């Protein structure tokens, strides 16, 4: 029997008395490739260029594998926490590549660095009867001064009505931390002196529990609770802290005199918890509003609040614009000091722990930006993200920092 399709189509048309209908279909994507370039630049500080490649493939109906490759180059300088030479800090030296401190300005207030990072992640997701999903992931990240290996697993179960999804996850990471020249400095040793200790190692354990609920056809809500623990070397081997003495003990505004500079020292454990709530709502015009709030606290006494708003506005021809606003605010760690004040600790005394890392200071951050995306014929998607971030620090040598994020991504689905 030769081809009967045309005759059959004709017979079907006369039966249904309508015009022949053509087929417009493609097989569901078996794999997808996502390539992305990200440029992050802080004003006069760090520049990061990142290449991200993601491959997602369905190895069977129920199993999906995702492989991520990340390559970063980072360079620039970052505040070290020290005050020495702060007064003469006017320029930033070019990246030395050696990962040491700038010699040309004679300042230890900023640390120059240049590094590359290679990260590989593999994630396997298994779905059964479309009601529950389990995934296992692992990742490796390597830099000159940092190696990390992580494993994680997540489980999500829908109720039979599919209105509620419960999820639970656990993640572990094993890190090796060192200076790019090897080893870690002795905590609270005089900068440039002291012993070089062996590499720092730490273990991180995180757990997460979540509930997602569909409220109606257009609204979805989510609550997550996560708690985790870091154990081991949590100090930053590059960060410093200076001892100061007020010029006039009765008038702090008169200024201070810099004394010695030391390597910082942090506790060897950190217990973290957070609650995250999010709501997503699709408006009648198919715009999607996404709002989330996160409350975080840890036993270093850092408490933070994060509010995030995004509104994805759809235009014709699969074109989307998504404005984004993020507000962040945190309290300082209980061992954060602008400096070790001689009036408090004496000429040689130390607190139990001490750090002048600006990231442990009280600060606020505001992110304003947008995403633009365009889908092409159902299989390609181009995305551009531009964000401006501004941080304001309460009690750090450099009280303001600005960054620009630019990201361009292209995702392609294959049959």
């Amino acid at each position: 029997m030769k081809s009967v399709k045309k005759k059959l189509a004709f017979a079907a048309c006369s039966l249904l008395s309508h015009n022949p209908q053509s087929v417009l279909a493609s097989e569901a994507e078996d794999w997808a490739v996502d390539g992305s370039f990200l440029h992050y630049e802080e004003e006069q500080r760090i520049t990061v260029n990142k290449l991200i490649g993601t491959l997602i493939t369905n190895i069977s109906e129920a199993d999906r594998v995702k492989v991520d490759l990340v390559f970063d180059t980072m360079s620039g300088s970052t505040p070290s926490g020290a005050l020495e030479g702060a007064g003469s800090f006017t320029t930033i030296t070019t990246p030395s590549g050696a990962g040491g401190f700038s010699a040309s300005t004679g300042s230890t207030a900023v640390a120059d660095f240049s590094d590359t990072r290679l990260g590989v992640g593999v994630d396997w997701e298994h779905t059964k009867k479309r009601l529950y999903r389990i995934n296992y992931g692992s990742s490796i990240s390597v830099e000159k001064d940092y190696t990390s290996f992580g494993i994680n697993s997540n489980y999500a179960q829908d109720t039979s009505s599919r209105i509620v999804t419960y999820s639970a996850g656990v993640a572990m990471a094993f890190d090796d931390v060192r200076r790019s020249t090897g080893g870690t400095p002795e905590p609270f040793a005089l900068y440039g002196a002291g012993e070089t200790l062996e590499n720092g190692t730490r273990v991180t354990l995180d757990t997460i529990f979540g509930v997602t609920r569909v409220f109606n056809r257009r609204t979805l809500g989510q609550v997550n609770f996560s708690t985790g623990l870091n154990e081991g070397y949590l100090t930053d081997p590059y960060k410093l802290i200076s001892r100061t003495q007020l010029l006039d003990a009765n008038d702090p505004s008169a200024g201070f005199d810099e004394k010695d500079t030391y390597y910082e020292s942090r506790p060897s454990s950190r217990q973290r918890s957070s609650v995250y709530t999010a709501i997503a709502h699709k408006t009648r015009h198919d715009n999607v509003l996404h709002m989330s709030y996160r409350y975080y606290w840890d036993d270093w006494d850092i408490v933070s609040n994060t509010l995030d708003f995004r509104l994805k506005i759809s235009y014709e021809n699969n074109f989307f614009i998504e404005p984004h606003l993020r507000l962040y605010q945190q309290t300082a760690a209980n061992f954060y000091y602008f400096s070790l004040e001689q009036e408090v600790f004496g000429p040689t005394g130390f607190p139990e722990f001490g750090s002048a890392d600006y990231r442990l200071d009280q600060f606020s951050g505001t992110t304003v930006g947008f995403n633009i995306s365009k889908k092409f014929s159902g299989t390609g998607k181009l995305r551009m993200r531009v964000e401006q971030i501004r941080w304001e620090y309460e009690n750090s040598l450099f009280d303001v920092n600005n960054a620009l994020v630019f990201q361009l991504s292209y995702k392609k689905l294959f049959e």
Partner: protein
Amino acid sequence: MASPCECLIACEDETLARELAALAESEASRIEQKFSRYRQNNIVHRINHAGTETIRVDNETADLLDFSAQCYQLSEGLFDITSGVLREVWQFDGSDHIPSAAAVNKVLKRVGWSKLQWDRPLLTLQPGMQIDLGGIGKEYAVDQVAKLLKQRASQVNVLVNFGGDLVATGPRLNAVPWTVGLDDPARTGEKTLGGVALSRGAFATSGDARRFLLKDSVRYSHILNPKTGWPVERAPRSVSVLSGTCIEAGMLATFALLQGKQARYFLEEQEVRFWMVE
């Protein structure tokens, strides 16, 4: 239709969606009541109980009979709406009950489209003959419902799926295609053979892995060759075809099953997208 029926409507107007759903339901049950051989007081029941009396049929029934005649010719006699009486001797219940050749031959005398008289709109059967539009009815209903909904609201696209035979009249909102999973007959409901992003077109699947007879290690499929009265040898367990209309896809899938081991070759000849489980 003896199977789950659904109608997905890509529309933001709830009142209109409800109206379309009600329309779909009434049209589907109208077709079922009119053409099901399991019901009485319908045209098929009247034809099958008329003996050798000539019956004048309505236009819609006549269209379906014309279509059946064309399918009989196109399949070279393999698709035959009079073959239903073979079920009197073949019960596909997974048992080893194989009828005798004599019993099969006796029933076969009452099988054959060429034996009846069809002179639109007049139909006359031979004694003991019956017709069964079950091989066309569901696919016809899918296309008919889709057509009706399109006539009622031309701007609204729908996907009509009656027990796995389906048609999409256009993409979903924002030109997003419908995603259709193809059930794996070996692990029905749990596993699929793959998926298709369907913006417009139809799918139909024929075959049923759970209906067969087994004797002396020979698996007899439930696909009967109306020319011999015996099961088609080495018929695929399931064939799914993608085509313009559901009835076209359904016929191609059925024709393919009737080709037995030639099924794949037949489908390749048709230059259609198909999925086959052997």
